């Protein structure tokens, strides 16, 4: 199979001596850095750490569900394990994953800026993230928490006697990390663009992050205040969510989902941004209908605020509210459909190669399509009654988040790895890993759709024996999936030392980030670029290369 990879001559090629990694030495130069690229790397390390913690917990869950009885662990342990899995994966991995690592690293470079608008706040947000993570781990080690990541009242306020307060405050703090990241991105994209970098020359990656940032800035504080109220209710018993004192537990649901539904768009939108970049690069084509894809991101962000009560259809909200929220849910599904088809048609008349990031992107498209369409099953109120709170929800959510978001994350990490480290990852084994991940994923989560259809409720430590076969499939798939995730971990670390030198633009991609050295200088650009070319302008790139050949070569 042919490839577009063009690496410099390995015999002579060297990683540039001066770059953001070698610029300063010593641990303090990392811990006190204001450089968005270094902070991105710090984030990359810390979210990987939490991903493997969350993954280990997922492994425990799957092992427990291998048999119908709760034999590996007692029911309360199981409850703590799945709660921690949810909390760690959602608040400490999925929410910061692409934005805090790839977004942090790339957004300033993509728009031609030297750094994010507020480098110190960027660093602060990493420390807040760490503080939140440390508190979560503390809560986990000192007895765990068993409310589920949704902290449903009055369970979390009056009936659970586990570390709800610690975990709640941990999420509160991690939430502010997310707010600051989002705030930084919005300001940066508005104010720091290089001359000539108009809104419609922004890479779709930036549009997606812009949309996600709006959700972070406007949604997260509502979660924060809700958790504060839960903590106050636990500590002094204020009774805002307590039915015995006249409070309404459904109000908690409203406030919680006002954040937590947009949160899934916070998680998926940056992934969609990655996919746009990757598909364009490996099809050598401008993204089909750039404007539609850009605006669909913003549409998802705006509509994302209008649909939260679809998590509460059977919870006794008013039937009129159910109608309205169900209708709006159907509307928010449309921009996602637009994106999928636009990506598919980007391939049309392209010149396609199949490097690892592209394989992950294909995986994303398939799995996200399934995840999105099954979301419609749940958005339609009549079928929601049967499917909600079963493994169907679990499968749907994991198709979107793990199948969608994690695929996109891995796609992006591979795609920008040469830029971040200056070295290529080994192509063959990483293609293998992509395929293994895809197969393992389907084995793990597709049976869960069937379990959900059959009515198996989620969060069950023990289940009726007739569901065992599908659960065994799922657990078997999870072990394949685990291998799929460990492989990149290993070969990416290996490539740090032994990978081929990547050069500036191994993929022949058009983004500004590919026109500078890899790894970039601390200040990204020696002089601020003036953007004259269009976005995804491959013809410009060709001319540029010819120009170089005639003048340099």
């Amino acid at each position: 199979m042919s490839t577009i990879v063009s690496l410099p001559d390995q015999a002579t090629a060297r990683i540039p001596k001066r770059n953001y990694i070698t610029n300063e030495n010593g641990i303090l130069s990392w811990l006190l850095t204001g450089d968005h690229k270094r902070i991105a790397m710090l984030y990359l390390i810390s979210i990987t750490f939490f991903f493997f913690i969350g993954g280990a917990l997922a492994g425990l869950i799957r092992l427990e569900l291998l048999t119908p009885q709760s034999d590996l662990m007692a029911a309360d342990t199981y409850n703590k394990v799945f709660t921690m899995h949810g909390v760690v994966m959602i608040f400490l991995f999925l929410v910061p994953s692409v934005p805090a690592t790839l977004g942090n690293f790339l957004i300033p470079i993509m728009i031609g800026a030297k750094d994010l608008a507020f480098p110190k706040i960027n660093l602060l947000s990493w420390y807040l993230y760490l503080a939140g993570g440390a508190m979560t781990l503390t809560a986990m080690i000192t007895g765990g928490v068993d409310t589920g990541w949704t902290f449903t009242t009055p369970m979390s306020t009056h009936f659970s006697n586990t570390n709800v307060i610690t975990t709640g405050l941990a999420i509160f703090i991690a939430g502010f990390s997310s707010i600051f990241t989002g705030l930084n991105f919005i300001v940066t994209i508005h104010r720091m663009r290089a001359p000539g970098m108009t809104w419609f020359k922004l890479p779709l990656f930036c549009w997606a992050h812009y949309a996600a940032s709006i959700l972070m800035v406007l949604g997260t504080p509502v979660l924060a205040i809700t958790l504060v109220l839960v903590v106050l209710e636990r500590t002094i018993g204020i009774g805002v969510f307590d039915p015995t004192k006249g409070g309404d537990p459904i109000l908690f649901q409203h406030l919680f989902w006002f954040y937590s539904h947009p949160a899934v768009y916070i998680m998926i939108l940056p992934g969609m941004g990655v996919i746009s970049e990757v598909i364009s690069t490996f099809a050598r084509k401008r993204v089909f209908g750039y404007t539609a894809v850009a605006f669909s991101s913003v549409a998802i962000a705006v509509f994302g605020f209008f649909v939260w009560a679809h998590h509460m259809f059977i919870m006794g909200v008013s039937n009129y509210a159910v109608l309205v929220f169900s209708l709006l849910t159907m509307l928010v599904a449309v921009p996602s459909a637009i994106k999928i088809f636009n990506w598919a048609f980007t391939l049309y008349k392209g010149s396609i190669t199949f490097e690892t990031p592209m394989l992950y992107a294909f995986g994303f498209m398939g799995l996200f399509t399934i995840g999105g369409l099954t979301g419609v099953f749940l958005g339609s109120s009549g079928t929601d009654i049967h499917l909600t709170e079963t493994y169907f929800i679990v499968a749907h959510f994991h198709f979107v988040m793990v199948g969608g978001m994690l695929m996109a994350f891995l796609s992006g990490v591979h795609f920008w790895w040469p830029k971040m480290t200056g070295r290529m990852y080994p192509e063959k084994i990483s293609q293998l890993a992509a395929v293994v991940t895809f197969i393992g994923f389907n084995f793990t989560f597709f049976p869960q759709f069937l379990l959900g259809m059959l009515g198996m409720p989620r969060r069950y430590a023990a289940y009726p024996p007739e569901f065992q076969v599908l659960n065994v499939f799922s657990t078997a798939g999870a072990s394949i999936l685990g291998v799929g995730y460990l492989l990149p971990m290993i070969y990416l670390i290996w490539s740090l030392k032994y990978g081929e030198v990547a050069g500036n633009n191994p993929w022949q991609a058009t983004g500004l980030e590919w026109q500078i050295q890899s790894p970039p200088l601390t200040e990204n650009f020696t002089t601020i670029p003036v953007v004259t070319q269009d976005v995804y302008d491959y013809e410009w790139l060709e001319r540029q290369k010819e120009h170089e050949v005639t003048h340099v070569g």
Partner: protein
Amino acid sequence: MSDKFENHDVNAGHTENEQHIVSPKVYLAIFGALVFFTALTVGASFIEMGPWNPVVAIAIAVVKATLVVLFFMHIKYSSKLMKLTVGAGVFTFLILVGMSLSDYFTRAWGQW
């Protein structure tokens, strides 16, 4: 170098480099208005107006807040982007309040 940064930002629409300095007279007038409206809202709450009491109270609060935002916080003299930002905040706030309340108000409509 700085001149290159002007006016390329078509949508953001920040056009003025000169910080608009609001004169103390304006501040004093706004301060007077705020004190007046505070007295008005306290007074209004002692008058029986039926369902209009909360409406009047909220309306006066909105007027006061608008005055503060426009003048003390300089939004009147700021770029479109800033105005849009404030608008977005208010809009999302209203979504949160309005759509949550819509559930509560319509619960009484049916037998549910």
